[in-house]
């Protein structure tokens, strides 16, 4: 019996997952698995100019079939490997042909609507061929958040809480300290030179700079990044 069937983009983004134990659907484990396998595949391709076809565990095998746009992965017991390999090739061919017939040029599940139909047909095909036994229909709607969550976690970004790393935090602390120094020196000059009190209002900008710098350091959050929709975790 096939324990798991997974289809991933060659970049590592999973697009289909079935697990006979936990039923259909994505888990963080399956997302990590997809990234791990894509990394090994890419590594083998870059360094050895070949693809990984089998990963052997103590009592299970990952069998892999890499195509131009995707890789199909079976997790199977260490018996009847040749039968599973044949099934894997059939499944992979089916998906490949379907992609060609539907004129699909990329498998971006977030921008390409036709992928949803493709995955439903693929799910149907697996059921017709008794490769999956779950009665629950495959849904790929919810995996986007899980995937994003994992992607963000892997670099340390937490939406609304942390969008800068250690180096970037230190930069803001230094800016805050420089602004504090400017403010103290300028205030001293105003006092010692007996300048008009209105000059103190010129200190508003460095004073704001002091607190904006310190607050960004303390909160691990950059205002500029927040408004410009980016994170820099360096």
């Amino acid at each position: 019996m096939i324990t798991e069937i997974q289809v991933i983009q060659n970049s590592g983004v999973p697009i289909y997952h079935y697990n006979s134990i936990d039923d259909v659907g994505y888990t963080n484990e399956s997302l990590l698995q997809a990234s791990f396998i894509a990394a090994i595949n890419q590594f083998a391709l870059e360094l050895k100019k070949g693809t990984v076809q089998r990963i052997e565990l103590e009592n299970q095998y990952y069998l892999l079939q890499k195509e131009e746009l995707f890789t199909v992965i079976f997790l199977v017991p260490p018996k009847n490997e040749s039968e599973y390999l044949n099934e894997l090739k059939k499944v992979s061919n089916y998906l490949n042909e379907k992609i060609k017939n539907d004129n699909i040029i990329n498998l971006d599940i977030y921008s390409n609507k036709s992928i949803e139909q493709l995955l439903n047909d693929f799910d149907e095909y697996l059921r017709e061929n008794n490769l999956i036994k779950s009665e629950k229909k495959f849904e790929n709607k919810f995996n986007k958040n899980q995937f994003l969550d994992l992607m963000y976690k892997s670099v340390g970004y937490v939406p609304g809480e942390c969008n800068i790393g250690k180096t970037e935090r230190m930069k803001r602390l230094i800016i805050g300290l420089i602004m504090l120094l400017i403010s103290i020196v300028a205030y001293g000059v105003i006092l010692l030179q007996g300048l008009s009190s209105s000059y103190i209002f010129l200190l508003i900008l460095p004073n704001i700079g002091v607190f904006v710098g310190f607050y960004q350091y303390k909160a691990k959050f950059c205002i500029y990044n927040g408004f410009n929709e980016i994170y820099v975790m360096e």
Partner: protein
Amino acid sequence: MNNLEFLKIDTDTKIIDDESRKKDQKKALQILSMGIFSGLLLTAAQYYLYLKIV
């Protein structure tokens, strides 16, 4: 070009979902207003001190 370039983790990235964007904007606005308020308060304190001293 180093052929291991693909292993580099992308730590500088555009946020691609609306929910995270909104959370970030809210937080950015919160820190900015706190910074402005505290800056103004410090200036007022400096002004008060100036009047006391001079």
